[in-house]
């Protein structure tokens, strides 16, 4: 299936891209999507334990199963205000 991975702030800078269209196996989870891009961009891997994720513009758990056409976003620790 086809998903769009979105990266923000430091994660985007580390990967050098804000959007990464990727193919994933059916029934892949948000965790699988993170693992795939962390393999592709090893400099992202150390952030894994502090990252949040969102699927289709809603916060989600890493165990969330993705579907074809989904947008999965990975968010570094936030610092608004």
């Amino acid at each position, binding site marked *: 299936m086809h998903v769009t991975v979105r990266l923000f702030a430091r994660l985007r800078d580390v990967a050098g891209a804000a959007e990464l269209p990727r193919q994933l196996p059916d029934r892949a989870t948000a965790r699988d999507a993170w693992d795939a891009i962390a393999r592709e961009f090893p400099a992202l891997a150390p952030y894994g334990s502090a990252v949040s994720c969102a699927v289709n513009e809603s916060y989600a758990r890493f165990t969330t199963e993705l579907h074809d056409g989904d947008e999965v976003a990975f968010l570094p620790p*936030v610092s608004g205000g």
Partner: protein
Amino acid sequence: MAPRFLITDDPLDPASIAGSVATGGDGAIATFVGLVRDHNLGRRVLWLDYEAYAPLAIKAFEQIANESQGSWPGARLAIHHRTGRLDIGEASVVIVAASAHRGEAFAACRYAIERVKQIAPIWKHEHFEGGDEWIEGATADPADQAARALALERACT
């Protein structure tokens, strides 16, 4: 009328934001304005660049307002956050809580800024003398009840 929840590159106007929630039944408006300050961690800050995941940020603001409604049913919130480059002294966030009475307005306003810092998908990129750095605070988890309890405690003391 301004929307109650907004992410914008434009300067924030607390008065017009207050106008989005105030009604004739309100006896109190508590407004929090967060400003860009010229120092952080011992560094001289030059400016900040704010980035947001806007659609998710709006949902986070709506969740914060719903949580607030549960604790202070008489208070209504507006939350606006700015993005892009902000210079020293500019407002980065404005939170307005309107209520019949001051107690609920103050508490809801304080609760909202604590929760914005915990769960709103917004990031500041600090440009200081000698370099720049992404500032990273809390790992956002809207379901984290311990974080929510901390915000409630801060709102009520």
